[in-house]
């Protein structure tokens, strides 16, 4: 059985990993895990970034995606370093999920997710509305590793 929400997220469900660079310039290994709950009425995204040398976590967050009353996607988002915010889907190309929302301290967060073949491209940016005060974009290109034997295995 599928739901309108799941028909949009089905290709993303599962585990994704890859290198990324945060807006602070810090580089790490990012993992994203999309999982459906309540038979596809909500999709949870767990995303965290680890230090490549030590494995220490330096970014972590959880988002819940659901359809709003108007059929567009809403994300209830918690990110450890920003706190909580709500993102609403904005217009974009058909194969891109773009969302935007306001953070408590006057910044606006925009996020986009695009599936390209076997890769998931994440971009996000914090804008302050004041020229020159926008933070650099975070970009991550993640891959899925669901084949039986890990590519890195002997």
């Amino acid at each position, binding site marked *: 059985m599928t739901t309108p929400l799941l028909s949009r997220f089905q290709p993303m469900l599962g585990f994704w990993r890859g290198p990324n660079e945060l807006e602070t310039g810090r580089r790490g290994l990012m993992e994203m895990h999309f999982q459906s709950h309540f038979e596809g009425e909500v999709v949870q995204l767990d995303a965290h970034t680890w230090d490549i040398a030590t494995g*220490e*976590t330096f970014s972590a967050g959880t988002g819940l995606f659901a359809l709003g009353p108007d059929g567009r996607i809403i994300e209830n988002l918690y990110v450890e*370093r920003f706190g909580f915010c709500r993102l609403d889907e904005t217009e974009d190309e058909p194969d891109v999920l773009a969302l935007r929302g306001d953070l408590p301290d006057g910044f606006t967060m925009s996020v986009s997710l695009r599936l390209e073949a076997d890769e998931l491209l994440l971009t996000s940016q914090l804008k302050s509305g004041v020229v020159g005060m926008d933070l650099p974009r975070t970009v991550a290109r*993640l891959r899925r590793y669901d084949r039986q034997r*890990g590519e*890195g295995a002997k």
Partner: protein
Amino acid sequence: MPTRLIKRFGDWLGTWRGTCEFSDGRAGLMQFRLTSVFNGEAIQVDTASYIPESGAPMTRGSGFFSLDRQGRVVNNIYADYLGFAVLVETPDDPEVLSLEGGLPGNMTLTVTMSVANDLMTLSSRVGEGYKSAPGRPRTYTQMKRVGPIQRPKGDAP
């Protein structure tokens, strides 16, 4: 009331991550996640190691700790590169958990684990099954407990 298993290993529950060196010399990032199951009757251990730069998996596996009637740890395991096995605790220092069990193909897997000051140390070796011929080099890993991100006061996010 915590079970005997949780009294012994309750402090091990949670996520652990750190660098590891495989017996063939390759290096990776290793993660262990220990979760109590059925109110402490068993502990599920999910393990994975990755190539740090890309996140490509090197090994993946799961296992369960539980206690047998004698209070020894039984650890039935799955590893994608080894298959399935049942390891049983062997005598060692009190703070060290040593386990041994047979692998497919007349091989033996030995594992030792210990936790001290938020650091989990693990070493494992695959060796010959019966004739105690010297086994291959060990896989060795040290993992730190993954805890809430600590931010000094006034630190920008």
